[in-house]
């Protein structure tokens, strides 16, 4: 009796490919988002700036020979009724010089609300040279009805910022997250970051 060419048992083969499919699903769901974030951090893609600067601020030194113009923008996302504006719109700083500026927020509504500011920065190539030592965007901002506040941002432009970068524009978009503030969101972030940890340790 002639036999068909048989490299593997059909069962084994399909199990293997089924496993590949499941792996690819997990890859899309659990690996691609953190990988993308990592990629954004490295390249400054989308102007995402990293979290709080961990390095030693005093060790950076100041380059008095040039200045960089920093512009500040404020945008409200849809349905965000607060007033939101930078108190300093433009400032010239020397690379390495620690600077503090403020944004003003005012909850114009009769409801207590929580907001989240999302930073974005252009040019992208400057994103890795803009260090925030303290920023209101690191935390959610609750404001009672009718309350207003001044939110601080401390930053340093890295001394190694490329020479072509003469202007950096930093934008904050304010989102209303009052509805989403419930614990679900934090679990999700924690769960995502746990997975990043696992991937990294593998």
């Amino acid at each position, binding site marked *: 009796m002639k036999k068909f060419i048989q490299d593997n048992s059909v069962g084994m083969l399909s199990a293997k490919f089924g496993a590949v499919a499941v792996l690819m699903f997990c890859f899309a769901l659990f690996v691609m988002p953190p990988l993308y974030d990592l990629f954004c951090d490295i390249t400054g893609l989308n102007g995402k700036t990293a979290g709080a600067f961990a390095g030693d601020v005093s060790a950076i030194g100041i380059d008095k020979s040039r200045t960089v113009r920093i*512009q500040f*923008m404020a945008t409200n*996302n*849809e349905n965000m009724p607060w007033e939101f504006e930078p108190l300093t719109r433009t400032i010239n700083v020397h690379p390495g010089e620690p600077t503090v500026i403020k944004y003003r927020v005012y909850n114009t509504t009769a409801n207590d609300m929580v907001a989240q500011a999302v930073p*974005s920065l252009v040019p992208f190539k400057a994103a890795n040279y803009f260090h925030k030592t303290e920023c209101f965007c690191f935390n959610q901002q609750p404001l009672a009805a009718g309350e207003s506040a001044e939110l601080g941002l401390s930053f340093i432009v890295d001394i190694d910022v490329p020479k*072509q*970068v003469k202007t950096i524009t930093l*934008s904050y978009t304010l989102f209303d997250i009052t509805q989403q503030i419930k614990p679900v969101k934090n679990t999700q972030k924690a769960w995502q970051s746990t997975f990043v940890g696992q991937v990294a340790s593998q």
Partner: protein
Amino acid sequence: MLHTFNQLKACLLSAALLGISSQSFAEEGVRSTINMPVGVTPISQEVFGLHMLIFWICVAIGVVVFGVMFYSMIVHRKSNGAKASNFHDSTVLEVAWTIIPFAILIAMAIPATSSLIKIYDTGDADVDIVITGYQWYWGYEYLDQGVSYFSRLSTPQEQIYNQAPKGENYLVEVDEPLIIPTNKKVRFLVTANDVIHSWWVPELAVKRDAIPGYINESWTYIEEPGTYRGVCAELCGKDHGFMPIVVKAVPEADYVAWIGERRQQAEKIAAMAKQTFTLEDLLAKGQDVYNKACLACHGVNGEGGVGKAITGSPIATGDAAAHIDIVVNGSRNNAAMAAYKDTLSEVDIAAVLTFQRNALGNSVGDLIQPIDILKFKQAN
């Protein structure tokens, strides 16, 4: 049958080629119906050149490949008595048609790379404009100038629903165009308020996605004053096709004058927004204004006379906007009711309107503030 095939193909190709080559002789300023606009910026002209370069390379390759193909379809057909040969391999040929396209690609990549680097050089801009996409209109903010406004489609609904003839700029006209100076580097910071939009003006060769929460940048440098029209290029919901862009490039002096005027307006609004009056203030002031400006025609107690009665009048007790309109602009039906926009200040008009609505036997109960009058004036 094959002839038909050939003829058709030839027709299609030659139509395309003729169309495009005749385009290059077309008079300047006439928009091509079949090709990309050359545009009005150094970048757009470079992009156009790149586009035409690749196009002609493709045409050349097409002529060779389709030439060989049609030759064999005509000559090597069974009905012509052709005998099939049996060759099915040639390393030389295969290596050649791997390497030659590769070389052509490199030739294309070099100018493309240099253009891309220029497009990405957003530094040293003279004017920064924040562009925000909304469902379904655009917002423009001149950074550091305190000037911002919205720009919406101005094509009337009747034209869209075919009840009126369509104008030349059907669906590409707006109430307030974006004004930018010529011979200046203008940087656009593009973001969105809700979903993703894309800001595209073909004649500037600028297309940038507007993404909620993030900013993108692009730039332009227009040499010729003129009006350039564009559209939203990313599906953003129901009225994606109805949020056009109009850019008006004006000489720098005009731009400076315009922005000064807009800034004054903005400052005036800001100052007036801080000026809010109580009902008592407005009524007291309103009584004075009424006595000076209205009493002669409308009577001491609003009972009417030469003019209509204020007491119980449908305008003075109805919608505030209509009431503001008749005082600011005057009556359209009766020349005796004059326009007061130039003779009374915003504060005076607000006061007299509040007075008319809440005294003289009327009690609508609303307050009209000076800012309402100013906003009404600027909106009309």
